[in-house]
């Protein structure tokens, strides 16, 4: 028996509490009881809003005005909305195209950090900052770095004689989307880096030594020993990153608010603009629900992948 348990003795109980204790000791009743507090919060603030959202998306509700059932018209109208097309396209670029950049740069960071470096703990803490601090606040830093007047990038390029006048980073659609994607990548590098680092440290040392004895060079050792071990983590991290950035909001809200001329929206910011600023709750709910099948697809992919690798 575990030594520390000898001090526990069965408590003496009054007869009335025996029935309650029996209830608590039956696994099924105790299990349900323990689930109850968490599940009630999730029921009221997650399941109910979700159902309500579906209902709202089928109505023409506006803020302060109860709406009527209009079937799928919100969804159909959105399919003919040019801004919505641009939004869907932007979201794809924002969530998917950025992933390979995050993964490669994150892998690079992980490989560097996997060496014996002096001050490795503070270094790790510092490079995690982009991922750890509130996105809304770090985006403000980028907001100024991309400012049409104060941008240090513009200043540097002018000093080097490469450009004549300041770049309006967030005022041009293509540059704005690139800038937004860059901030997204910047924030994601540490997340990939630290996850992959955990994977690298789990690679058995003997395998590397064996491969080195067999004459494999650095590149071959990486491809044949290291990579198979971290493939799973890269896959899971990528899927998590896709799911999270797909449903992003604050980064774009701060940098462009979807502008110029609604050209840089993603689902979250467009839904906010339509559902909150323009008060069209029903239409806003429909925009958010267009995310659902895509999120469900990636979530199920992630779940299947995690169960397979377990």
């Amino acid at each position, binding site marked *: 028996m*575990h030594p520390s*348990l000898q001090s526990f003795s069965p*408590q003496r109980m009054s007869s009335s509490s025996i029935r309650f204790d029996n209830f608590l000791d039956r*696994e*099924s009743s*105790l299990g349900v009881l323990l*689930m*109850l*507090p968490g599940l009630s*919060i*999730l029921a009221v*603030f*997650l399941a109910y*809003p979700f159902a309500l*959202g579906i209902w*709202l998306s089928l109505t023409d509700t506006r803020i302060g005005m109860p709406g009527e059932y209009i079937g799928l018209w919100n969804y159909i109208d959105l399919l003919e909305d040019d801004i919505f097309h641009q939004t869907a396209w932007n979201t794809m670029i924002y969530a998917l195209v950025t992933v390979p950049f995050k993964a490669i740069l994150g892998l690079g960071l992980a490989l*560097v950090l996997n060496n014996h470096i002096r001050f490795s*703990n503070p270094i*790790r*803490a*510092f*490079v*995690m*900052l*982009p991922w*750890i*601090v*509130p*996105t*809304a*606040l*770090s985006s*403000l*830093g980028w907001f*100024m*770095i991309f400012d049409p007047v*104060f941008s240090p990038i513009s200043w540097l390029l002018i000093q080097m004689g490469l450009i004549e006048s300041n770049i309006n980073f967030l005022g041009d659609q293509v540059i704005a989307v690139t800038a937004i994607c860059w901030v997204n990548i*910047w924030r994601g*590098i*540490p997340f990939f880096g630290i*996850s992959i680092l*955990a*994977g690298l440290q789990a690679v058995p040392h003997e395998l590397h030594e064996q491969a080195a004895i067999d004459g494999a060079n650095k590149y071959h050792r990486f491809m044949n020993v290291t990579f198979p071990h971290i493939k799973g*983590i890269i896959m899971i991290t990528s899927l998590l990153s896709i*799911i*999270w950035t*797909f*449903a992003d*909001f*604050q980064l774009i*809200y701060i940098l462009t608010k979807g502008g110029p001329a609604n050209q840089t929206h993603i689902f*979250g910011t467009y*839904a*906010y603009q339509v559902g*909150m600023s323009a008060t069209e709750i029903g239409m806003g709910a429909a925009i958010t629900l267009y995310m659902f099948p895509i*999120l469900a697809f990636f*979530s199920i992919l992630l*779940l299947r992948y995690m*169960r397979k*690798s377990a």
Partner: protein
Amino acid sequence: MMVGSESHRTLQIYIPLVIFGLLLLFPFYWMTIVSLKPSSDLFDMNFNPFWVQRFTFENYTYLFENTAFWSWLWNTMIIAIVSTALSIFCSICIGYALARLKFPGSNFMGIGIFLVYLVPPTLLFIPMAQVIGALNLFNTHWSLILTYPTQLIPFASWLLMGYFLTIPKEIEESALMDGCSRIQILIRIVLPLSVPGILSATIFCFTLCWNEFLYALIFMSSGDMKTIPVGTVSDLIKADTLFWGSLMASALLGSVPVAFIYSFFVKYYVSGLTASAVKG
């Protein structure tokens, strides 16, 4: 590293490290120097913008005296603490139930909880605003204390369930034989053995609360009730007058607590971060 001389090592490790450092930390450097400059220096294009010519704390004084910064800080803290405590309590219960107990629906519940973890606030904020309105909770701490757990409970439960599963069953079984109840076992045996797991779940929940933006933006619109991220963004960016220095000062100060907590508990945080990936 076995290969190469010192210069080889510098080339392969320290140069990339410095590049990554510059890339990842430049925005923070920029925010710091802007927060320490008088506004007039920002406009002077003859100054090198990457350096501070004249130090000043006037941006910080402006922030403390002319904005509701201290209220924002108080709101953010109280909401993050209460919401985290509530979520950790619920998650310990759920995690233990899923790890150890058989009850109707227990198999399906584990996957359900994981999938709920992937439901983002962006999917729910519109109907959620209706719910908060119906409950009369706009501009109250409760609006966020009660809604943040929907993000926190699924992840923390999942993480704690994984942690509880690593505790040998035999310890609990022998305690059961000795007549301990399940609740006693949970409180006296499982929890003390799970301190690292609970700690990483707590840090995770706290930082998520601290960093949340969308719900706070919608539910807390009155000046004094804002959280730091929302207050900074909405009260310091007003039309065309931008208080760049104070804006950066507020953004930095709002980032300090999470950075501070994180640097102390880096180990737990990383294990929490990768728990789902490694344990999966």
